[in-house]
């Protein structure tokens, strides 16, 4: 018997191969395209960052890490890098904590829930460029709503986008306005996922007040959500570009120059392809650090049903 079963065919049968063939046939177009439009170009960026190529130039030379040396010696790059960090340091905590606060308030009672959720979420879906143009008008130093409103309560307005001390903060403010709604709904989902009996248990254990319940149940249970929201917000803020291009063009005097904007001007205005690729590589290394964390967290907390 043992001999018989050992002699029996163990090779993949026609049917197994048919399944594999179907698998390749269905998956291959997507994989090929993924390589052509995404993975290949992303690898090419790394290669280009090691060359001195300029778009249209007849030849390119490998210059090793020359672009990076030039980059790290460039004051504008460091300015751009620093601005991006500052932008994140303002936008991320701002939109995360505001998002959490709003979500907690909205979830406190059913009254007005749908309205508030829609109101705070609206900026997330609306076209940012169009809204940036609106913000430009709102922030207009003389006829803008913001300064008019400030003057109505007796505060002297400033030129929000032309003042180098506040321009970056202004952009960060718009960033918060745009993204707080997304963080709010992520937190709302997290809050709704907390089992109600945990609150009952906390009450039995003597955590009766709202603050006590927040400390003993809500906040600890929201841990994974908070981490996730923070990472997602960080990645989004690192990619700030639209408002800079429309509202300040990196100015005044490089006060709002950010990494993607540097990449854009080097790559598509000056066509210094190799140099712009080096900026991209730096950019991607930073974002990837966040993203790796995000994917690991995301696997844990996202449910598809």
């Amino acid at each position, binding site marked *: 018997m043992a001999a018989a*079963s050992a002699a029996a065919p163990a090779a993949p049968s026609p049917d197994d191969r048919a399944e594999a063939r179907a698998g390749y046939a269905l998956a291959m177009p997507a994989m090929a395209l993924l390589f052509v439009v995404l993975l290949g170009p992303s690898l090419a960026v790394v290669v280009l960052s090691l060359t001195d190529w300029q778009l249209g130039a007849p030849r390119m030379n490998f210059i090793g890490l020359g672009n990076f040396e030039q980059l790290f010696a460039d004051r504008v790059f460091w300015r751009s890098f620093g601005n991006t960090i500052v932008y994140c340091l303002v936008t991320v905590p701002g939109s995360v904590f505001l998002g959490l606060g709003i979500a907690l308030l909205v979830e406190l009672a059913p009254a007005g829930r749908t309205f508030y959720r829609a109101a705070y979420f609206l900026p997330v879906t609306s076209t940012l460029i169009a809204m940036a143009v609106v913000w430009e008008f709102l922030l207009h130093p003389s006829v803008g709503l913001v300064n008019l409103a400030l003057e109505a309560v007796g505060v002297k307005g400033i030129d929000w986008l032309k003042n180098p001390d506040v321009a970056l903060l202004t952009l960060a403010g718009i960033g918060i306005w745009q993204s707080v709604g997304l963080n709010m709904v992520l937190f709302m989902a997290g809050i709704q996922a907390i089992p109600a009996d945990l609150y009952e248990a906390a009450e039995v254990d003597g955590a009766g007040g709202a603050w006590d319940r927040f400390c003993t149940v809500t906040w600890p249970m929201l841990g994974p959500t908070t981490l996730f929201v923070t990472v997602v917000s960080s990645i989004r803020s690192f990619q700030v570009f639209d408002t800079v291009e429309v509202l300040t063009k990196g100015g005044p005097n490089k006060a709002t120059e950010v990494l993607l904007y540097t990449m854009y001007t080097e790559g598509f205005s000056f066509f210094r392809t190799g140099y712009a690729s080096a900026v991209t590589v730096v950019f991607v290394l930073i974002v990837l650090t966040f993203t790796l964390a995000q994917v690991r967290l995301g696997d844990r907390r996202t449910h598809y049903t």
Partner: protein
Amino acid sequence: MGAITISGLGKSFGTVEVLKDVSLDIADGEFLTLLGPSGCGKSTLLRIIAGLERQTAGSIAIDGRAIDGLPAKARNIAMVFQSYALYPHLTAARNIALPLTMRRMTPWQRLPLVGSLLPGTRGLRAAIGRDVAGVAAALDIAHLLDRKPGQLSGGQKQRVALARAMVRQPAAFLLDEPLSNLDAKLRVQMRAELTDLHRRLATTMIYVTHDQAEAMTMSDRVAVLMGGDLLQVGPPRRIYDDPETLQVAEFVGSPKINVLPGRMGRPGLVDCLGARLPLGVPGGPDVALRVAVRPEALVLARPDAADCLRGRVRHIENLGSDCMVHADVEGAADPVVVRLDPEAGGRLARGTPIALEIPPHRALVFDAEGKRLRPDAATARLRRAGA
């Protein structure tokens, strides 16, 4: 026609061997039950027969024709899944119609909109509709045809799944624990209905279950599968009365069979906790044995009788029709269970000393590995003469 021959079938997932050298002949029109604890490889075997999974050794033939290379859809075998696997987005009628649509209509005719303009499509659809209605009437689900699975109860889903399997008149049905998601009462009712259905269709059915009551009540033959090994195949009664191994004896029967330590005494005699049993099994003196006795086989003896197990009543379960008495017996690791009629059981109380007699012809003897030892021919004749 659907005689199924399984020979030397093996299946491994990586290094884990799930099925080991399974050979089995199933006659056309037979109702065969695969019985075994969960995780023993029953579903795997069924899925290999259906063509959904690939064996790593051995082969399967239907009516003498090997089907190993055929894809599932070419095997003419229908399956009813434990989860019913009804398509949630289709009505019961369209669920039942799908196998016919796929078989009878060309890909062009199946196209939405365009298909219905092609010649012949309407006639085919009408014929399919008639077949669906016929099966639905036979299973008493005609009134459910417009509902989606989400609007059906468990029993109704079960019938729709059966209808979907039946409608294309396959060579054989494979049923994977089809009743395990139903409540107890419905399960008993469906048991009878399935048996009846099998009688009417006279098609081969391979029925998988871990429930021995289903196996015992429905099947022509039962195949006991444990740990990937096919331990015994035979009619239900034989599996129960005449198990080949201790494993089978222990798996079949509720309450579980009593297993007692034994030892070869003088030739032909087995010593078992003070009882000397003339069992006539072969073997040298002092060989360790196991003696298994079903609870209904034990006989309550007078307290002073000889050659008995002795112990005290530990616990009494009165089920109304029967009375299960659990007794601590000296030398036995587990309590011994005896089935008595309620009257006899009623006379006992916790702590009552009792003596239990083992009728020799009801005792099953196994060697230390759990293999059945049968009386050799000479002693069997002697025993018959003695009795």
